[in-house]
């Protein structure tokens, strides 16, 4: 979405400088390098190796992002996802907006440039779609945007641009993890997704249909 915005900026007299920040493991760097090849200016990884389980710690991620924006590299717009599939917290962009004191739009599906200080944002709200021209700074959380596939850089661009080193931030993990959290995971249980497959017995198809209707369908249909 950021790349599309940047493509569209021609003719609007706006130049976007694109940066990427992720909290992740070293093994993600191969992927991050492709972002350089797609012409991002800064690619930053907050180092979090495997022993750091932060799947259910959205406040830590928000802290780290806010820290980067206030201390290291000021930004006008932050674009992020709504939630990860593992943690499914659904909180990080909102917490980041609160920390920065910025407004936030969630479930964003499209983005267009307006001028240096403004963006046109399309987002889902409950039961309707909103199209707003908003001022920066703001936090945008991307929802079910159609065709949200990352484009692929050519091997030539990868060779030319992918060599640039990833920028690193090493946070004080002990301090971050020691701080008491407001919400803590206490239990995880797998959910069984199998169905009963009760076989309806009967001598004729009509008898089976009657069984099915009386025992299983009639009540349910009446409820509807």
């Amino acid at each position, binding site marked *: 979405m950021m790349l599309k915005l940047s493509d569209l900026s021609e003719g609007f007299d706006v130049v976007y400088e694109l940066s990427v920040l992720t909290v992740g493991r070293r093994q993600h760097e*191969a992927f991050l390098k492709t972002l350089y090849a797609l012409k991002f200016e800064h690619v930053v990884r907050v180092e979090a190796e495997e022993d750091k389980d932060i799947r259910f710690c959205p406040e830590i991620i928000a802290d780290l992002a806010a820290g980067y924006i206030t201390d290291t590299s000021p930004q006008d717009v932050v674009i992020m996802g709504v939630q990860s599939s593992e943690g499914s917290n659904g909180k990080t962009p909102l917490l980041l907006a609160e920390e920065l004191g910025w407004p936030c739009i969630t479930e964003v599906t499209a983005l267009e440039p307006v001028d240096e200080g403004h963006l046109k944002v399309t987002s889902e709200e409950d039961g309707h779609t909103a199209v707003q021209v908003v001022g920066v700074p703001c936090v945008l959380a991307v929802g079910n945007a159609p*065709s949200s*596939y990352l*484009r*692929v850089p050519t091997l030539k661009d990868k060779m030319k641009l992918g060599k640039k080193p990833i920028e690193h931030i090493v946070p004080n993990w002990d301090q971050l993890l020691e701080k008491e959290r407001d919400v803590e995971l206490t239990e995880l249980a797998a959910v069984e997704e199998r169905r009963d497959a009760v076989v309806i017995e009967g001598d004729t198809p009509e008898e089976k249909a009657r069984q099915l209707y009386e025992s299983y369908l009639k009540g349910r249909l009446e409820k509807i």
Partner: protein
Amino acid sequence: MAIISREQIVEGLVGILGSEQVITDEQVLKESSLDRYRKYEQVCEVYTQPIPAAVVYVKSAEEVSEVLKFADDNEINVVPRTGQSAIEGGLETALKDSVVIDGSTMNKVIKVDEYNMQVTCQCGVPLQELDDMLRERGYTTGHSPQSKPLAQMGGLVATRSIGQFSTLYGGIEDMIVGMEAVFPNGKICRIKNVPRRAAGPDIRHIICGNEGALCYITEVTLKLFKWQPDNNRYIGYMLDDEHMKLGFDCLREVMVEGYKPSFARLYDAADAQQHFSAWLPEGKAILIWMAEGPANITPAIEAGIKEMMSKHPELEEVDPKLIEKWYGGLNWGPEQIAEEKEEIKATQNIGITTEVSGSWDNIYDIYKTACDRIMEEVPDMTLMGGHSSHSYINGTNMYFVYYYNIVDCAPEEEINKYHDRINEIICEQVIKYGGSIVHHHGLGKARAKYVTEEYGSSYYMLKTLKQAFDPNGIMNMGTLIPLRK
């Protein structure tokens, strides 16, 4: 080309099969004019091939016979089809007013013969359903191509397909017993089910691999094997991409020493990243084997391979659990196809494969020079790599995998600008070094133009078969033998 009109063709077919089995819906016809060789045209819903006159669903060998006789009398091109997973143009309707004969409704498993260890089924039986059913009884066909969720028996035999466990079970040619097929004049031929015979040439191989250009396969009997997945052993090593030559030599060593793993694979670094990026560092190629079979044999194969590999300091062993996990997600079904379509639309980035084979002494040259030439000569490449996935005592295959961005190019032009160009380079290099340009997807129409170079002096035999069995030229024209322009 047909000597009667499109309307008369449909009328004639309805007369034979009834209107329910004759489909003339425009969208269905369009989608039936091509296969995944023209993947980008498929995604863009741009159809450059002649649109067939009808798709007919057949229910018996007798119906096939009637339809073929009708087509033969009226010189109508027919394209046999079952699971529709073809990717080399074999299903393209290259001539005007073709008829697609779809056997997917002939989907009965006729007999599971556990004592003689063979299973007989109609041409439309999906391999996935067959093998799942057999596995519940403790058996397997041993056939497991990536297209397993889509492919059906007729097409699998017609294209001489091969599965992921071929190093143990062989290709489909090693699994077939007897068959039934219908020829253009309506003659229904059955080849009986026996363990072996020496009564003249093995005529099964006129049917197996005919790609619908000689006859229509209606029934197939395959061998059965015991399924004992609990005994499976996985072995894996990573190595630097520069050591690909050594990788091929490691595959060779295992084969030459007489081991029979069920798969033996070597991925170069680019292709390996597509499958193992979750844990495999960039720039690393990977070698993997799986041993399958009785409980006292698989550990022996594992130990044997490990002992041989321990002598190569360039190799670093990987956790077999990681290999096992990858093995669980190998196949390519309708979900992946639906997803891929969206992704191609959004990114204009497309991925394609071409599979070839070579001897141990030329496979590395084929691999290396083809990759280098493509990178040099074709624009907008985003990935160029490949793997070897089927090894033999005397050589192995190479499965080229390549992705490119489609830049400033109409859907109709894509084939010329990119796909055919890459195919051409690969075929040229293979022929130059003495391999085969087709390992297991069939010649189809895409590679038929290289058939005389592929066959050399033996092309005479192929041409004679075509002339003898299909004198009026109605069977999947353009496949195996290219159309005269």
